[in-house]
């Protein structure tokens, strides 16, 4: 008689570990969301349902400003990163092997390997020096820093997409009298679109989320939503923060869901 195949779900304690893991992952978030709807100021005692903290958040001009800044920064940085990552992905998958290719991969993926705090401090010193030299204190520093940080996240899905594309498609286009530019315009680019969208969304979420880089690079009055929230938490914690965090969470969920839907539809 054949023995049942080994299955990890049959190990003793598997169920318990699974439950603890899910509780650790989701309970704090569920509580955070729950108390954003609390009638009172307490974070631990339920006093009834209300939308007053959402109202407060919407009426808070500071929250509105930092939210818009975060969105603008995320769109700009992720957009730039996506363009650069697309070029990098084309360069590393479509021109054949070249010496130093592995090195290039490593360089592109550098932000994935260097601890964020190290990047942050390095940027702080670097940006401070430029500020002293030029006197410029605009958003350019944040855009540049976020763009650099987003590139590897945008690069990975775009490159993955390109690697699944049969080179014979481009050969077929050339065979059917397409110039290299036409082959790119009509064949490669349209087929890359799912990868490009996925790359943009990943970059967007990463930029929206990063605290460390922003904290070290920003000038006065350049708070993003996460750095603003961090600043507020040092003072008093009202459920207004819960409401803002919940909205932030909802936005991230929408984007991540869209990301999965896009990457799942293969070959269109």
């Amino acid at each position, binding site marked *: 008689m054949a023995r049942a195949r080994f299955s990890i779900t049959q190990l003793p304690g598997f169920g318990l570990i699974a439950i603890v893991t899910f509780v650790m992952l989701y309970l704090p978030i569920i509580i955070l969301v729950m108390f954003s709807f609390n009638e009172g100021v307490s974070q631990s005692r339920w006093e009834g349902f209300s939308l007053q903290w959402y109202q407060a958040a919407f009426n808070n001009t500071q929250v509105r400003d930092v939210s818009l800044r975060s969105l603008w920064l995320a769109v700009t940085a992720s957009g730039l990163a996506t363009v650069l990552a697309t070029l990098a992905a084309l360069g590393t998958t479509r021109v054949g092997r070249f010496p130093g290719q592995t090195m290039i991969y490593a360089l592109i993926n550098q932000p994935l390997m260097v601890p964020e705090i190290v990047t942050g401090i390095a940027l702080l010193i670097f940006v401070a020096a430029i500020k002293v030299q030029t006197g410029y204190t605009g958003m350019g520093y944040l855009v540049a820093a976020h763009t650099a940080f987003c590139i590897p996240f945008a690069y990975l899905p775009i490159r993955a997409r390109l690697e699944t594309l049969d080179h014979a498609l481009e050969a077929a286009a050339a065979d059917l009298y397409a110039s290299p530019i036409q082959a790119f315009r009509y*064949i490669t680019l349209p087929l890359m679109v799912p990868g490009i969208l996925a790359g943009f969304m990943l970059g967007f979420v990463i930029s929206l989320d990063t605290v460390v880089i922003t904290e070290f690079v920003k000038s006065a009055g350049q708070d993003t939503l996460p750095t603003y929230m961090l600043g507020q938490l040092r003072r008093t914690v009202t459920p207004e923060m819960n409401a803002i965090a919940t909205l932030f969470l909802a936005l991230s969920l929408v984007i991540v869901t869209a990301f999965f839907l896009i990457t799942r539809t293969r070959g269109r």
Partner: protein
Amino acid sequence: MQKEIEITGLNKSFGQGASAFHALSGIDLSIGSGEFFTLLGPSGCGKTTLLRIIAGFEEPSTGVLKINGKEVTGLGPSKRPINTVFQSYALFPHMSVADNIGFGLKMLGKPKSEIKSTVAEMLQLVRMEAMADRLPSEISGGQQQRVALARALAPRPRVLLLDEPLSALDLKLRKEMQSELKRLQAETGITFVFVTHDQEEALTMSDRIAVMSAGEILQLGPPQEIYNAPVNRFVADFIGDTNFLILRVKEIGNGEAVLELPGGRQASARLPESISPPVGSRVTAVIRPEQAEPTAAGQGEMQAVVEAATFFGTDTHLHLLLDDAQGFVLRRQNRPDQPSPAPGTRLGLSFAPGALRVLED
């Protein structure tokens, strides 16, 4: 016959210096206008490389390639009046069947109305009218094959290159597409250069075949000639089934050799022009399994004992042992009134003059 493709002294190697790999050596061939020409050889012998050089995806290392009398060295694939049906079809997955077929004409800058009518004509030619708006992922493998053909034919190239186009199809569909391809070639009059590793496919479809091995053309000629008069052991072995016999030369003369058969009788065999073995030496000779016939024991040119019989439906293969212990396979058509002989039966073998041939080796 007008020459469509002319290749002289073509070599192709990949890599440099001592580690260079010679994929093609000393290729000379010319392909006539409107010909169905086949490159036949085992996997890795350089068929695809030769096709890619003709299409313009690779440059030859040395040698000259002329298309319609003009040298094309340095011209990319988009500058040659040649289209390819790729081994993987390479249909554009984001375009409908109709847009795939019209792509070449669009790139050539043809007016919309002309593209539309040519696409309709091509859809009809490959019998895919009903599928015009489908995506490639929404049609079967055989249908994708037809679309790939229509797409390559639509710009009316002078030459169509087909790289093992039927190898992914199942047997029944493959037979169907074989006659479909012959029909398309007859209707369009376009020169076809067809690549296959399937000898039967090559024999049934081609006007001429080039048999390739390890980057060289071993024999070039019409199917009958390749089958009936293989020049060497590789060709004889690769094309169809063959009995190889090692026999002693008794006499030489007139382009023929008189050979001593197992059992002592003698028979004359055609000799290739390139060799003249000395009398008394041993040569390799071949007879196709269907070109010998069983006779009563004691009659015919050779004597044999039946070792085994394998039934194949239309015919039976008799595995025989000749008098000098060489093996021999005989193919006999099945008839209800002729049961196959039991193992151990003695029988004679006769063969027509010309069935026995000496190989170059």
